[in-house]
C-alpha cells in the first residue's frame, strides 16, 4: 500500500490537492474537478495502476460536519437537558472545504489494490464531470448521487432521478432535508385518488448527536 502511495505521489503529486492514507490504509486523493477526468483516465489505463473497476461512488454533504447537538465539555447549573431540548448546533470541528463531495472507490483486479478519490465542490447546483466514459458502472452511481444530493454530473448520458418517487421535489440526503421528509401520501376516498399532503408527524431526536474528545484517540490525532 505504501508502495502505491509513492507511485501515486510521483505521478499525480502536482495535480492533486492532497494525498493521504485513510484509517483503512487506503490511499486517498483529493482533487479539483478540473483534474478529475484526466487523472481517472490515467488511473484506468496506465501501468502500474490499472484501476479497472469503479466499485462505488458516494455523494457526501458536509453541511453539518463537526456540529454537535449537545455540549459535553462543561455543565450548566441546571445540568444536562437530557436532549429533551436541543441546544443550537455548535460547531466543534471547522469545515473550511466546499460543501458537497463525491467519493470514488476504485479497485484494480490486476494489481489487487484499492484507491479512493475525493472531489469537493461548491455551488448550486454542484457540478462534477462524469466518469461514465471511463467506467460504465458510474451510470447508476452518478444518477443516485444526483437524485439524493443534487450533484450534477456533466457529460452523463442519462442523468435522471433513480431512487426517489416520480415527481419528487428536493434532494433527500442533503443535511438540510428533514429526516421525516416534506410530504406524505395517502389515498383519499372522496377524491378517489392518492393525494400528497405536508407531513403530519414531528421530527424527534431520541439520541442527540454528541462529539466527544475521546482520550484514547487524542494522542493519535495530535
Amino acid at each position, binding site marked *: 500500500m505504501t508502495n502505491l502511495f509513492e507511485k501515486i505521489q510521483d505521478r499525480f503529486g502536482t495535480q492533486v490537492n492532497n494525498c493521504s492514507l*485513510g*484509517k483503512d490504509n487506503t490511499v486517498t486523493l483529493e482533487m479539483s474537478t478540473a483534474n478529475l477526468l484526466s487523472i481517472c483516465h490515467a488511473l484506468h489505463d496506465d501501468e502500474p495502476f490499472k484501476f*479497472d*473497476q469503479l466499485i462505488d461512488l458516494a455523494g457526501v454533504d458536509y453541511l453539518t460536519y463537526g456540529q454537535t447537538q449537545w455540549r459535553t465539555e462543561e455543565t450548566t447549573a441546571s445540568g444536562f437537558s437530557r436532549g429533551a431540548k436541543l441546544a443550537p448546533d455548535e460547531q466543534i470541528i471547522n469545515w473550511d472545504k466546499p460543501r458537497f463531495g463525491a*467519493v470514488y472507490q476504485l479497485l484494480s483486479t490486476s494489481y*489487487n489494490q484499492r484507491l479512493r478519490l475525493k472531489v469537493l465542490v461548491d455551488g448550486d447546483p454542484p457540478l462534477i464531470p462524469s466518469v461514465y466514459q471511463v*467506467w460504465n458502472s458510474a451510470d*447508476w452511481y452518478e444518477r443516485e448521487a444526483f437524485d439524493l444530493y443534487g450533484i450534477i454530473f456533466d457529460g452523463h448520458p442519462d442523468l435522471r432521478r433513480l431512487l426517489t418517487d416520480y415527481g419528487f421535489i428536493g434532494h433527500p440526503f442533503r443535511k438540510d432535508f428533514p429526516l421525516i421528509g416534506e410530504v406524505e401520501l395517502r389515498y383519499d376516498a372522496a377524491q378517489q385518488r392518492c393525494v400528497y399532503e405536508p407531513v403530519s408527524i414531528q421530527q424527534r431526536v*431520541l439520541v442527540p448527536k454528541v462529539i466527544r474528545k*475521546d482520550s484514547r484517540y487524542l494522542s493519535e490525532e495530535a
Partner: protein
Amino acid sequence: MTDVRNYTFNFGPQHPAAHGVLRLITEVDGEVIQRIDPHVGLLHRATEKLAESKPYNQSIGYMDRLDYVSMMMNEHAYVLAIEKLLKIEAPKRAQYIRVMFDEITRILNHLLWLGCHALDVGAMTVFLYAFREREDLMDCYEAVSGTRMHATYYRPGGVYRDLPNSMPKYKSSRWSSDKRTQSRNKARDGTLLDFIWDFTDRFPGLIDEYENLLTNNRIWKQRTVDIGVVSAERALNLGFTGPMLRGSGVAWDLRKKQPYEVYNELDFDIPIGKNGDCYDRYLVRVEEMRQSTRIVRQCIEWLRHNPGPVILDDYKVVPPTREMMKRDMESMIHHFKLFTEGYVIPEGEAYAAIEHSKGEFGIYMVSDGANKPYRVKIRAASYPVLAALNELAKGHMIADLVAIISTIDVVFGEVDR
C-alpha cells in the same frame, strides 16, 4: 403493408419474476427486446440517512434488512467498517463464528437463488428442495440469535453471544407422531455445532440432487446456455463482482485476494466460469455452495477445539454482561452510557468490503467524531449489475428476460436501500 413499430410495455413492479418490486419499461420488436429501462427505488427506505440519525449500534439491525436473504453478511461489512475506524479486532473465536455464519448465509442465499431461478425458468421441484434445506439453516440462525432472519448477531468487537450448547427440539403433536418427531429431532440432540456438522454431512448429497435435476437437463440448458452473455472485460467495466464476474472467467474473490477475518487460514477453492452466460453462473454458484460447506466444516472443527471469548472486553464499545452490571458500578456506568448515547468514533473515514454472496458488499463510513456516523454509503453488489440489465438483455427474447433477471440474483432490499 402496415408499418410495424416497436412496442413498449411495462413489466412489474408487481410480477412474480421481478424478484421484488422492479419496474421495467421494455421496448420490444416482436418478441425481441430492444431496450430496457429499469425503474428502481420502489423499496427505497433511505437506510443510509436513517443510519446517520442514530448511534452506530442501532443501525446493525437495518443492515439485515438490506439484502434480506444474506442477512449476517450485511452486518459483517457494517461492523468491519466500525472496527476499522476504531482500530479494534474481534477475538479469534468470534472471527471463526463470523466466517462460519457468513458461509451458512452464502448457502442460504444460493439456495434461494437456485430455487427461484429454477422456478422462473419452469422447474418447480428445485424450489421445494431448496426451501427444505433453508429451513435447517434458518434454525441455526434462530439458535444463535433468536430470530430466523434479521439476526443482529454481529457486533463491533465480536458477536453477540457464544454458540449455544443445545438445539431447540420439535415436540410431538396431533399432526406429528412421536416416532416422526423423534426422527425429526435426530440431529438436534447435540450442540449447534453438531447440528451444523450433520447438515454439512448431508448437504453435498443434496446438491447432487439439485444437479441431477438441472445440470444435464435439456430444457434447463436450452433456457440458460448463451443467455445473458457478458465478457470479462465488460463485466469489469460495468462494476460486476462476485459470481457475476467469476462466471465470466475472472478469478476474483475478496476471500482469497484481500482476506478478512480468518479466510487466509481456511482451505477452499474459487470456481470460475468460461462463457459468462446464465449456465456458467449457475455452475459457479452451485460449486460455491460445495466450497462453503467445506469452509463451514473447517470452522466447526476449529470452534470445537478452541473455546474462548467471542467479543472484546473493551467496555467503551461492548456492553458489559448483565451479571457484571448488577454488581459493578463501573459496568453500570458503561452500560448506561452505551445504551443512552453510544460510543464515539474518532474522526476519519473507512471503506470495508466483504465477499458477499452476490459480490462485493461494502460500507463507506465517514465519522466526524460523534456517536452517530456522519455518512454511511452502502455498496450493494447487485446494484451495478441491475444497471447493466439493458446491455445483458438486449437482443434476447422476452422469455429470456426472466432468466436474466434471476441470474443477477437481485434483491431489492439492497438495490433500493
